[in-house]
């Protein structure tokens, strides 16, 4: 032992100093744990918000890009519109060369289907395919087909061209695409096939909707579309203008049975 050691031996922390320090540390620990908890809670909330935003973003994106409804527009040009759950166009696909001509200058993605239909029907390219006896057919595949049919029928251009509107089943659409046809034209092909087994999808693909309809009428003996659409158009107009509800339901229900009978 040395003198310095002995001298420092009596220098000690008193109990009060120890207690004050212990109290201070105890309070600090409690304060920091509380802050830590608040920080963690905030961090967790922020992380949760970020995750939620990401999930919502992914859900919204997938809802936005997932097609749930489809509209086939056929004259000779055959065009299909794919719609998301918000009824906005996610894709516009041409199923023949004429369809490609129509879509060439149109940017339809993101539009509501009503606007997209108007854009197509108002385009000069589309107008050039419409003749006196042309048959404009809309075919809808959707869980919400009645509403979409109703909306299409209320379009001014639909009335102007005296269009027809039907519904179809998604199974028909899948088959149509396997055969390289729009499902509108394929539905007409299936109807014709009921009367004439020899007709092929490939043959129908080269025909206009009017030509397919005329062949069907040859078998059914119906003449409502004969020599153009004027007589039927008048009926359609009268129907849609005087009793819209009835027209819509007629179109829709006949569409449900599409492949067996058109809206004649």
């Amino acid at each position, binding site marked *: 032992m040395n003198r*310095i050691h002995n001298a420092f031996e009596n220098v000690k922390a008193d109990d009060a*100093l120890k207690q004050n320090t212990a109290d*201070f540390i*105890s309070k600090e620990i409690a304060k920091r744990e509380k802050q830590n908890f608040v920080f963690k809670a905030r961090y967790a909330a922020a992380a949760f918000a970020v995750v939620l935003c990401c999930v919502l973003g992914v859900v919204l994106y997938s809802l936005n890009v997932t097609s749930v409804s489809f509209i086939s527009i056929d004259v000779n040009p055959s065009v299909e519109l794919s719609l998301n759950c918000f009824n906005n166009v996610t894709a516009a696909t041409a199923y023949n060369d004429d369809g490609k001509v129509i879509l060439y200058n149109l940017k339809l993605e993101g539009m509501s289907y009503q606007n997209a239909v108007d854009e197509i029907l108002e385009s000069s390219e589309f107008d050039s395919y419409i003749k006196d006896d042309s048959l404009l057919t809309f075919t809808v595949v959707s869980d919400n087909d009645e509403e979409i049919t109703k909306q299409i029928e209320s379009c001014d251009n639909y009335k102007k061209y005296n269009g027809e509107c039907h519904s179809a089943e998604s199974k028909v659409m899948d088959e149509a695409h396997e055969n390289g046809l729009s499902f509108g034209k394929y539905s007409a092909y299936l109807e014709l096939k009921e009367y004439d087994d020899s007709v092929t999808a490939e043959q129908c693909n080269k025909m206009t909707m009017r030509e397919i309809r005329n062949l069907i009428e040859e078998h059914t003996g119906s003449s409502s579309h004969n020599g153009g659409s004027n007589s039927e158009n008048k009926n359609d107009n009268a129907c849609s203008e005087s009793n819209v509800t009835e027209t819509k339901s007629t179109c829709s229900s006949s569409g449900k049975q599409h492949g067996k009978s058109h809206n004649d």
Partner: protein
Amino acid sequence: MRSEYEANRAIEQYSDMVKRICFLHLKNHHDTDDIFQNVFLKYVTSTTEFASQEHEKAWFARVTINACKDLLKSFFHKNMVPLDAVAEESFSYSDEQSDVLEAVLSLPKKYKDVVYLFYYENYTAVEIAKIMNKNENTVYTLLSRARKLLKEKLGGDDFEQNT
């Protein structure tokens, strides 16, 4: 963050050493309280894993010395004189102890820690060099000069301890 239990154990174990280092540098209770709080709070919040008790003790010595130096360097401390700045510590010393303490406290700042760590805590010069982050030879030099000064003031040969 360490627990309250660990903090209390450390206070019980190291408060005397912390107090002695404070005693070397500070002249009032208020500053000593501050250093105590700072050092033990630093311990509680430190993530340092101590390999042994010796490692932990050396950590306390280093942190306390640095805390005292920081306090003395601070602008506030240099420019303010607390009311109890002249209050004397109420330890009971013999005349001999008092003389030795006075001699150690009168040493230039740079010698005090080295003398305390060497003579009281029985650290070797190598260990002191690590604690104080100084060159080993510098510690030898500081010890040698401090010893010479103490010998001049106190006389005797018992400062001649093998380093």
